[in-house]
């Protein structure tokens, strides 16, 4: 069963500030993470609620019916047209955000050196390099911070072949530290079972939420499509952040060598010169499949290169979502 809270395992306490670079904060400061769908928060917030209530934002008129409170009668309309209309207001609420980070063995891959001042993860310790999990952790920390500043509730789930850890959603003051602690201490191993992990996290999440899925998505597209379908069915929104190393994206090898799988022990002798073109085609096909699966469910998807900063990519995503929100509600 997923455990709430950190799984540090008794190691030295983490310094949460080391997981969020100041330049990232600077780049994200102008943006808000907006929910595309209506949110079902418990408190007042900046996100649209499905419920009509006593909010300040006028929604629409409807004809008066017996039993309606006369407090909501629009007397100005009655004065002009001698008809009884009731004013309706949309309630605004806060947003539940669940950040799901893939901690399967394939996320342990990285070809960039560890960044200066980085707090480190289990992957960092194992490979002494900037792994995909490190990049996903940095991204998750930034998103969590952004959401908490918006008074949204944020939680984190760590998954591979199942849901390993889940930090419950909260907008409390030290929620960000708990999240960072969970990410910094998560073990990176095992294969990926996305569908099962989504099932498990949905059991823990009662109401609608925004799921930020950070993974390399190196598993069959059908499994991804099935997981996303479950999220869609639950009425939740999702953002897919495909995290890949630059070497994965470019396959820039010069000498043939045996390749060994991180999630399986199979070894494959590859003529890199001959296979590069075909590999890139396969990768492109796979990424297109991820994009199609996300769009099919109505979710956003971006690809993150671990050799680049988190800020610009996230900024672009947030800007895109804000633009969408503005188009929907002028």
């Amino acid at each position: 069963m997923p455990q709430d809270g950190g799984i540090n395992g008794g190691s030295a306490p983490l310094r949460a500030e080391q997981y969020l670079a100041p330049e990232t904060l600077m780049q994200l400061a102008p943006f808000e993470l907006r929910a595309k769908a209506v949110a079902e928060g418990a408190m007042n917030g900046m996100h649209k609620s499905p419920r009509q209530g006593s909010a300040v934002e006028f929604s629409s008129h409807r004809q008066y019916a017996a039993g309606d409170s006369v407090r909501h009668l629009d007397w100005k309309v009655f004065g002009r047209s001698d008809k009884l209309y009731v004013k309706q207001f949309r309630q605004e609420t806060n947003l539940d955000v669940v950040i799901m980070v893939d901690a399967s063995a394939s996320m342990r891959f990285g070809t960039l050196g560890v960044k200066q001042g980085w707090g480190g993860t289990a992957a960092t310790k194992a490979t002494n390099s900037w792994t995909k999990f490190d990049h996903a952790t940095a991204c998750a920390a930034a998103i969590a911070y952004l959401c908490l500043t918006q008074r949204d509730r944020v939680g984190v789930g760590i998954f591979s072949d199942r849901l390993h850890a889940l930090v419950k959603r909260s907008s409390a003051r030290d929620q960000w530290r708990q999240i960072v602690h969970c990410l910094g201490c998560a073990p990176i191993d095992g294969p990926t079972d996305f569908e099962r992990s989504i099932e498990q996290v949905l059991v823990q999440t009662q109401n609608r939420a925004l799921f930020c899925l950070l993974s390399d998505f190196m598993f069959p597209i059908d499994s991804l499509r099935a997981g996303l379908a479950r999220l869609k069915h639950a009425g939740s929104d999702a953002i897919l952040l495909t995290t890949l190393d630059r070497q994965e994206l470019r396959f820039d090898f010069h000498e043939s060598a045996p390749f060994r799988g991180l999630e399986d022990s199979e070894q494959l002798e590859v003529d890199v010169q001959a296979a590069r073109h075909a590999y890139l085609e396969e990768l492109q096909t796979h990424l297109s499949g991820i994009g199609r699966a996300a769009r099919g469910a109505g979710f956003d998807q971006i690809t993150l290169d671990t050799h680049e900063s988190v800020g610009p990519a996230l900024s672009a995503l947030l800007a895109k979502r804000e633009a969408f929100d503005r188009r929907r509600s002028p």
Partner: protein
Amino acid sequence: MIGIGSASLAVVAATAVSIPILIHLLFRRRKQPIDWPSMELLRRAVRRVERRRRLERLLLLLTRCLLVTMAGLGIAAPFWGTPPGSTEHQQRTLMLLIDNGVASSERSGSSTILEELKAQARAELDTLGPGDRVGFVPIADPQQGTYPPSLDIETVRSGITAITQSESPTNLPGAIRALRAKGAFSLARAQWKILSAWRTGSTDFGQSLQVVGANNAPTMEISKPLTSQPINFQLRSVATKRSAASLREREIQLLAQVSRSDASATEAATIVVQITDTNGNEASGPAHFNPGQTNASASILLRQEQAIAPAEIGIEASITTDDQPADNTLHTVIRTTNEIRVALIDRPRFDNVSLGDSPASVWIERALTPGESGAIEVESMEPSTLSAKKLRPFSAAILLRPDLCDKGGWEALQHFVSNRGVLIITPPPTVNSSQWTKHMVESMGLDWKLGDQPKQHNPATTLSQAQPQHPILRLIWPELEEMAPTVICTQQLSIDVGSVVSDVVLRTSDGTPFITATPVGSGMLVLMSITPELDWTNLPAKPLMVPLLQELVRAAKDMVSGSPTLSVGSIDTHTTGATTLIEGRTTHQNKSGIATPIDPATGACPPLETAGLYEALDTSGRLIATIPVAVDRNAAAIEPVDETQLSKWLAPLQTTATPNTTRVTNTPIVTDPTTDNHPGKQLAGACFILAIAAMGIETLLSRKYARREMAS
């Protein structure tokens, strides 16, 4: 022997050698495996690459194979179907059926048809290459001469050159039968050609080729029939004239029958018949042909230096040379005997009667012995005293009173006839026929039906002008046409011979048989429907009486006592008791003298291949008979055949006619080796073009694949 020093030196050397190997192994660069997250994508990529590479390699391999194959074919194409050393030829199997039958001995310029056919066959051989097979069959001797297809063309050429002119008939059905028996019909891709002039003698339209299995034969190519009209005289027969040669005579009167072809019948002609006998005597006589006449005879008196001994004289007759020499010579045997003794079986008469009332016996005796020095001696015999012993000295018996014969008498007569005797029966003048005809028919085993009463003719009938040409009267055939109608018949015995019309010797103008004859055992029975008396017929008073009776006795005697003239190709000598047949010993030419075995029981022998006189000897070397063998006159006929009829006859062979005639052109159909129309050469060009195209494709593909490898 290896010492300690040597061993230590070997260890040092081995160590020294192993140092670089160890260095190589120690410093060998080991590639560290790369941990990779997206192995599934990489695996798929590698599979795609391998698949594509396999396809590319296969494509390259096919292109290179095509290149090499086309280049090889291009080099080899000009020599296709040609053995080493030859430049232009296609392999084939050729079977030649060459007509060497007697008809092909026809003269053609200075040569013969057979020589032309052989030249044509050799010309066919010139079209063959060393890889081809050829065989041939002389059609007249298919059993002996079948030469199976062989690669040795020169030997076959020698064999064709050595084909000799056969005097046997052309035997195409026999050749077909022999080839089928030897499995020649199953020869794959064999080309069959029948080389023949297709003259009348070459064909036997009476024998269906389909019956001999020719309908299973492969398609055959036939030479075109010769259509020229030949000039041919044919010596048909030579025989003694009127009476048999006698010991008392020193001359033999011979009659030679000569015929000629229609082409030469427009003008008058005279042909001289030359006679040579085995005693060395020679004689000759002319046969005159009037315009339009196709048959003529020559009377020849053959004088003997000494009185003729009772023996057989071999005769070789010949006429002047014409287009067909094979039928210009004829061999026959004349048997010189003592007088022919004839028993006249009748009741003795003691009264003198006038000429007009003379009984039949008087007329017959006068007819048989017209002069004092006749060759026939007549003795009277009482019918009631007939016995086999009494009849034994006689060659012929004339029974004038069959009604008086008892059972023993008929048995004696039957024994007489069965042992080479000639029995002539006339009905009794006044007695009912039923009293004796039943005995006669039963004892002789006849199928004839005889009337009970003489048939009366009122008005009287005459003998027919057109008489059946029965061989017993062949010497008087020319006279019959003139003499027969003068004979009047007022009554006669009714004779019904059924379907055996060949038994009728003479007949009346209403078609009733006048005289009939049939073999009985080894002898012959002649039945006259009239009693030679003037009450029945005026025959006794007519000129026909004497030659008629003479021939009935003499010719019948010859027919039953001597060996018949055989045809070339015969396999039966008709002679029993002989074991050996020797050719030519009785002739003055004394030919080969080759001995041929005879089955003494049946007289069967191997096919007689040449015409001439043969001696049949028994085991002790005693002469049994002299056998003349002559060329079959019908097989030697060289008149043109009707091409439609020939095509119909050859239809079972699915033949196709060649444009060539049998007249040899001396222009052998040989492919000119300098010509450049060999299909292989044209193919070579195409092969080289394809090879160049394959080379271009291979270069393009290699470069494309290499470039892509480098790019990736």
